[in-house]
């Protein structure tokens, strides 16, 4: 009995950490410039495909390509900011809607492009150092790719935390506090925004690569993870790193417990239900600043 309970709790934790890291990238961009990136799930999907392609054609293990894909996604994030978001920010009329629908259009475009290049069918990475392996500790099965993914997520969180303590991190924080005043102390706001997008995209890229180690890869895989990421961010509090971590794990646990006790197909309903409840009593989320 204890083993079953432990299995459920650990399963939730392992998935929750992935959710947390996906949400961290979203939260970073949102906190920085008040933009919701509706193409966030598609960035994750691209990272998964990058991992898949590198694995299939270069024979690289997902763990090895982590830095490569993260760097690629960083560049893509900067590119998206410079090409689209900077323009959307400079719009004077109807800005809120323009921001939403520019990233939405981008999401649809990326999904179409992935379908065009890779086709719509599901793919998976099924060989590698860890693929398909499980460890067993005290009757609890631990799928190794997921364990590795969780560890990488924790490291990535530590990395984000470390970055937030650097000069750049303080510039991020200052830009978030008052995006107009930072110009007075010599911070190039545009550059900070671009780097913020790069960092956010790289973060979700890391999550995507690790996810690709044990999850199917397909053009529409991002949509569902993105939705959970929005909920995670809203639950944890927009812009809060710690909030994303706590909320991500919480959501993983809620999913796992619902799937075990009730009906697997309803696991997300309970997640979204909890989000609605939190929304009513604490609209800014668990760790959100006002």
């Amino acid at each position, binding site marked *: 009995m204890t083993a079953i309970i432990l299995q459920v709790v650990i399963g939730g934790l392992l998935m929750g950490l992935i959710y947390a890291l996906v949400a961290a990238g979203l939260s970073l961009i949102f906190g920085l410039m008040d933009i919701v990136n509706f193409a966030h799930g598609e960035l994750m999907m691209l990272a998964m495909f990058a991992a898949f392609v590198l694995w299939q054609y270069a024979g690289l293990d997902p763990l090895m390509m982590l830095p490569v894909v993260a760097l690629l996604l960083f560049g893509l994030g900067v590119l998206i900011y410079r090409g689209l978001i900077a323009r959307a920010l400079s*719009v004077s009329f109807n800005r809120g809607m323009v921001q939403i629908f*520019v990233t939405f*259009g981008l999401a649809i475009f990326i999904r179409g492009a992935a379908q065009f290049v890779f086709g719509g069918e599901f793919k998976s990475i099924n060989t590698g150092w860890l693929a398909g392996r499980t460890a067993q500790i005290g009757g609890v099965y631990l799928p190794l790719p997921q364990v590795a993914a969780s560890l990488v997520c924790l490291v990535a969180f530590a990395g984000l935390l470390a970055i937030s303590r650097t000069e750049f991190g303080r510039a991020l924080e200052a830009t978030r506090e008052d995006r107009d005043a930072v110009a007075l102390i010599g911070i190039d706001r545009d550059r900070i925004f671009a780097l913020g997008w790069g960092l956010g995209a790289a973060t979700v890229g890391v999550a995507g690569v690790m996810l690709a180690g044990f999850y199917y890869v397909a*053009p529409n895989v991002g949509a569902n993870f993105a*939705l959970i990421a929005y909920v995670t961010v809203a639950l944890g509090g927009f812009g809060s790193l710690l909030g994303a971590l706590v909320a991500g794990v919480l959501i993983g646990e809620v999913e796992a417990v619902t799937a075990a006790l009730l009906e697997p*197909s309803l696991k997300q309903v309970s997640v*979204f239900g909890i989000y609605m409840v939190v929304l009513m009593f604490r609209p800014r989320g668990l760790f959100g600043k006002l």
Partner: protein
Amino acid sequence: MDNRITRRRRRELVVGAVLLVALILLPLPIGDVYTRNLIIISILFAGLAQAWNILGGYCGQISLGHSLYFGIGGYVSTLLFVQAGVPPLIGMFAGGLVGGLVALLVGWPCFRLSGHYYAIATVVVAEIGYLLFLNWDFVGGAMGVYIPFKGDSWLALQFRTQKLPYHYVVLAFAAATWLAAWCIEGSRWGFSWRAVKDDVVAARSLGVRVFPSKMAAAAISGFFTGMGGAIYAQYVGYIDPDSTMSGQLAILIALPAVLGGVGTLWGPFLGAAVLTPLSELSRSYLGGSGRGVDLMIYGLVIVVVALARPAGLLSLFGLRRRAKGAPDGSPA
């Protein structure tokens, strides 16, 4: 000043009537079923976008969950017909009423949020509805419900081969949404809503009751969206969560209004006239083999229009005029 506004509003009514007559005549010389279907779908989405516009455009609440009201409206009329024999011509009003009611239920928690927070909450609520319907056996679950054919009838809105009757049904629907938007533009409500959209704090200080304003806009918007869902279900003769409640659909409802021109009378119609054929045509000519080119084109159009014409395609025609008290009409 007042006189000019009345004159403008009267002119809009005349333009609307002319357009209505043109659309009544439009399908008559067209025998081709594919084209007629395309026109019907476009008009339906014009009406849906206008319904969205009532909440999203005039009141400024960007809902990305209108698929919920659409689907529920469709299910209500379908189930009333299939289970209780209530003719869909009546059932679609029931669908609309339930759609409006659900919009109120959703609005109650969600309207405390603003901006992106509201938009995300609507996505989540719609997803909850979608998942519940997917797992609810009474409504057919993922399989959905087939609407049995009971002979050509206006009361049941069923026609085996004809497309023309549906054309007039969706046209009446779209005309009703337009008329509702026209009435709202000139009414006290319309002014309150636009005040809420532009500046909540200023609106409140002027004595506008913000929360009831949003709720009223949501109810009207939800009503028409639900009605549209009922008509759609009857038109295709089948309803399931994927085709009537998906997040994708919520975007399809909102996009024509956003890209055509939010908070305008003609924007949603213009947007639907451009976007719906674009999406349908590119899907049938380019998307058949699942190659995704249709999605790429669609996404690109959204990005380009949103960035190049933030006020919507309508601004290309210079039709936007300075509405009283609203900071729009600037030559974009």
